[in-house]
């Protein structure tokens, strides 16, 4: 009995191992990580992990958990190939391991900056604990940081570095922050918050090269502007880690392609998490999402499927980003929205944006309004759209009352 082999011990891989035991799976489970670090929470890497030099990694689960659940955790073990005919994986050291079912939970890798000088010392990409450790240990003596990329990781890092007293400038190629992840109103509010924290933001600013002898000292923009920096943090997105899947001949298209049961084009191989392109239930088309929620809820669904209860994955997506003291929360997907209802507080700050598509509520973005976010998750999951005036009020009493009537 070769059991279930999971490649990748991030949020999704670890949750799958846990959920398989919760579902009563009694066979062998092997969880393989190419990282040497004990499986850890990724979101804090760009936040609390950077706040002090001593902050530890936050373990996903302690050692006792893996022992009690008889999960064979293999750290620092890189899989180099999959033999689909023999149903084995081969490690970099040549050893092989058989599987009955293989699950690819390989996640993403940081998109690398491809300009001259990107390999200079002082340039950091931020994805893994190893990346974060290297960046943190280089922070001593740094005064000016250029953050390339105005997405979630870049902005979280910018807020954290500014809070450490550093001079921070954000360089974003697009005309606005946060790309298509959030509405324009939320992106602008986040930008205004960062400016109040002392962060300088340059949109429509493409980087042409990084300059320095061995150590970076200047970021040069395409328009000729030069930004002095003794550290550069690159956060320009992530690419799905599909090397193994592609080499094994599995269908890949912006990720490892699966059906709604997370099955790949090989009936013995499944995939989950950031690396997967799957038929997204709320959008009604193929999509790939990068989030903790997507990975862990897919893991729960897949654990049921692999223990005899085929369970299509259709959970409502949600996301969050802690940018300094600003808590941005997103319920649902706004890709198809054609109407936005913005809610402001009495002091004029943005509280939330309610996104509708053809009159139906599809997503709600909130800033420091956790109750509204939680209610929105319920509303969207239940397929409910409230009266526009109630949504526009942003008032929890009115929202809760309307929800209890509508449900």
């Amino acid at each position, binding site marked *: 009995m070769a059991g279930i082999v999971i490649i990748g011990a991030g949020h999704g891989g670890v949750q799958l191992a846990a959920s398989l035991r919760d579902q009563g799976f009694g066979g062998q489970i092997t969880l393989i990580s190419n990282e040497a670090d004990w499986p850890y929470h990724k979101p*804090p890497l760009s936040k609390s992990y950077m706040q002090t030099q001593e902050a530890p990694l*936050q373990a996903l*689960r302690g*050692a*006792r*958990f893996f*022992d009690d659940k008889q999960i064979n955790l293999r750290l620092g073990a890189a899989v180099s190939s999959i033999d689909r005919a023999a149903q084995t994986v081969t490690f970099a050291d040549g050893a092989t391991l058989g599987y009955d079912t293989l699950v690819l939970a390989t996640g993403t890798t940081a998109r690398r900056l491809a300009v001259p000088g990107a390999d200079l010392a002082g340039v950091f990409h931020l994805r893994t604990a190893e990346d974060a450790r290297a960046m943190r240990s280089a922070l001593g003596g740094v005064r000016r940081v250029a953050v390339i990329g105005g997405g979630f990781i870049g902005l979280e890092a910018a807020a954290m570095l500014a809070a450490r007293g550093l001079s921070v400038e954000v360089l974003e190629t697009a005309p606005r922050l946060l790309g298509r992840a959030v509405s324009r109103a939320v992106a602008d509010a986040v930008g205004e918050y960062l400016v109040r924290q002392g962060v300088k933001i340059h949109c429509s600013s493409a980087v042409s090269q990084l300059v320095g002898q061995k150590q970076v000292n200047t970021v040069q923009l395409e328009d000729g502007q030069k930004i002095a920096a003794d550290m550069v943090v690159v956060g320009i997105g992530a690419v799905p880690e599909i090397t193994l899947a592609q080499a094994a001949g599995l269908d890949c298209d912006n990720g490892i392609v699966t059906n709604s049961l997370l099955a790949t084009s090989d009936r013995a191989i499944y995939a989950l998490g950031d690396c997967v392109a799957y038929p997204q239930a709320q959008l009604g088309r193929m999509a790939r999402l990068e989030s903790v929620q997507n990975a862990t809820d897919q893991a729960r669904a897949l654990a049921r499927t692999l223990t005899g209860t085929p369970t299509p994955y259709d959970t409502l997506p949600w996301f969050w980003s802690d940018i300094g003291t600003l808590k941005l929360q997103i319920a649902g997907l706004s890709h198809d929205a054609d109407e936005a209802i913005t809610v402001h507080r009495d002091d004029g700050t943005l509280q939330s944006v309610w996104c509708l598509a053809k009159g139906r509520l599809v997503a709600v973005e909130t800033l420091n309004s*956790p*109750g509204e976010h939680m*209610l929105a998750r319920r509303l969207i999951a239940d397929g409910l759209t409230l009266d526009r005036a109630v949504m526009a009020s942003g008032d929890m009493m009115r929202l809760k009352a309307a929800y209890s009537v509508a449900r």
Partner: protein
Amino acid sequence: MAKITFIQPDGSPLIVDAQPGDSVMVAATAAGVDGIAAECGGSCMCATCHCLVETGPIGALPEMEDAERDTLEFTAEQMQPASRLTCQITVSEALDGLVLRVVGR
């Protein structure tokens, strides 16, 4: 240190030496308590660190804030009067002897 007992979903107790300053959730996951997934890492987003307060120094627990109440109300399974999200409780010496029942899911 504060000794906190977690009654796991299978009924077995696990006594954890919790470090003051950590959240109760961090103490539980580091010790490998079963049934606490804590997938959001302590951001009060997922309600997968839901426990019921059973016995011990209940008066020493911090007051529940709106974010925790709303998260419990709208996302947790079986919210009860004794429900708490352990990511929102900071360990202190005063919590020594606390007994929590893991809700799990």
